[in-house]
């Protein structure tokens, strides 16, 4: 059985807008998947449905044999890490505390009230920081780091959960090209070395082809492409985006239209 399976998943917002239409997907454990599509296609909605930040209104999502329902969201989230476009770190707290936040699902509210964590948590956090190469910044305030560093803290937080799945919602959209490559390399490394399934939302087709095992594309809530990077031909891209990457670079209006 697939590690993650989505069956006839739809998401309709209260105002009637349908963001996901009849999504059917099977994802094996350990894959690195890139999700492509124009803005508003439903990429974020898809990821956020998987950890129930924006639960699906129809259909079934099953992760590791457990089907999502209102009662088990927190349990599911304990082992699903998420990396955000805006990093979503707590600025005033130090890097170590931001990473330790990943361990909160395992503890009751009483110990959390006093900002106390057991030694084992510190060991896990340290390993996570080592993985993202930020041990030296462990005690700095989160808002004193650069964008790329903050995102790596976000990844360390996800790692601290000891997750089997990491969902990255446009993780590089706020980063410069160098930091973007660092982050994607890191995610790829985590996937290959630890066997963690990684699903990343991206705008850049080139990065998707470079790093992903499998590419999924959405357009207006529909699943329009599901295959290997080689299968993503220029023609297929045209279907997804309405035009190819080469063409868009010559026509500023079209580029802006797809921005």
């Amino acid at each position, binding site marked *: 059985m697939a590690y993650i399976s989505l069956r006839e998943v739809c998401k309709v917002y209260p105002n009637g807008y349908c963001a996901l239409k009849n999504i059917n997907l099977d994802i094996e454990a350990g894959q690195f998947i890139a999700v492509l599509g124009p803005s508003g296609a439903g990429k974020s909605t898809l990821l956020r449905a998987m950890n129930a930040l924006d639960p699906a209104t129809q259909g079934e999502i099953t992760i590791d044999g457990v089907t999502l329902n209102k009662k088990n969201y927190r349990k599911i989230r304990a082992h699903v890490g998420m990396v955000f476009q805006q990093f979503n770190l707590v600025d005033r*707290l*130090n890097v*170590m*505390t931001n990473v*330790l936040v990943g361990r909160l699902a395992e503890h009751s509210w009483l*110990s959390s009230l*006093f*900002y*106390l*964590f*057991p*030694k084992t948590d*510190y060991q896990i956090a340290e390993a996570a920081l080592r993985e993202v190469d930020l041990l030296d910044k462990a*005690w700095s305030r989160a808002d004193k780091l650069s964008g790329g560093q903050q995102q790596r803290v976000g990844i360390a937080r996800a790692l601290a959960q000891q997750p089997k799945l990491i969902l990255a919602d446009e993780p590089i959209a706020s980063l410069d090209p160098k930091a973007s490559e660092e982050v994607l390399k890191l995610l790829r490394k985590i996937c290959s070395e630890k066997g963690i399934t990684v699903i990343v939302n991206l705008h850049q087709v080139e990065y998707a082809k470079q790093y992903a095992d499998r590419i999924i594309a959405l357009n207006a809530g529909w699943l329009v492409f599901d295959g290997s990077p080689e299968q993503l031909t220029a023609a297929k891209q045209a279907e997804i985006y309405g035009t190819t990457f080469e063409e868009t670079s010559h026509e500023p209006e079209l580029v802006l239209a797809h921005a």
Partner: protein
Amino acid sequence: MNPSWYWPTPNGKPPLTAVLSVVLPIAVLVLTASTVDMSYNKVFYALPRMLDFTQHLWVMPDWHYLPQLGEKMLETVEMTLLATALAVVISMPLGILAAKNASPNPWIFRMTRDLLSFIRALPELVWALVFVSALGLGPLPGIMALALVTVGFMGKFIAESIEVVDFKAVEGLESTGCTKFQSILYAMLPQAVPDFIGSLLYILDHNLRAASILGLVGAGGIGYDMVMSMRLFNYERIGMIALSIYALVTLLDRLSDVFRQKAIGGILNVH
């Protein structure tokens, strides 16, 4: 405590500021408990009496009191509005004088600033006591007291708003060769207006509450009735008074929210 739980700091212990900010207040509380007669017994034994009191409130309201209640509540509202309006008018020029960058000379600046500090420093009720002594009973001393204290706060607030104004706009204006007064009027005041509205609404709210207790010392409003009905255990009236104050304050609160939204939208464009 289990020794293998730590705080997220380099040495595993809680940061000094955090510890102090918890320990110091607790220490002060413990040391001063006797000064305020803080004792568990007192509070505990008072609970049944308070319950008893609230039970007594559930009585038929004294309908005959309604006209007087209405009159006194109206008086309270009128005092608030009048005092606030007076204060706004007086505090605009004073606020300008008390702003470092708008004041004609440093001496006037200092004196105005200190004057505003002085009139702010006493609670309205104290001023009301003083004015009642001088002017006799009635709403006038209450209005004076409220207006005075409001001038103190509003003046300081206006001065501070003017001081943090964006100087680029002022420079732009001065480059056309206008006088200092004109630059104040056309560059500084308009920038201070949005914050001014916010603080005005807040001050209205504060003044309504203050006005409702000034009657305690005979300075008009519902305060006198409030205290007298408590002293005479006139439960029917107390409930009515408390309810009407609650209703009024809540009404003002909702109105301010609405007004705040509109004011941000620019309904107060002067030009």
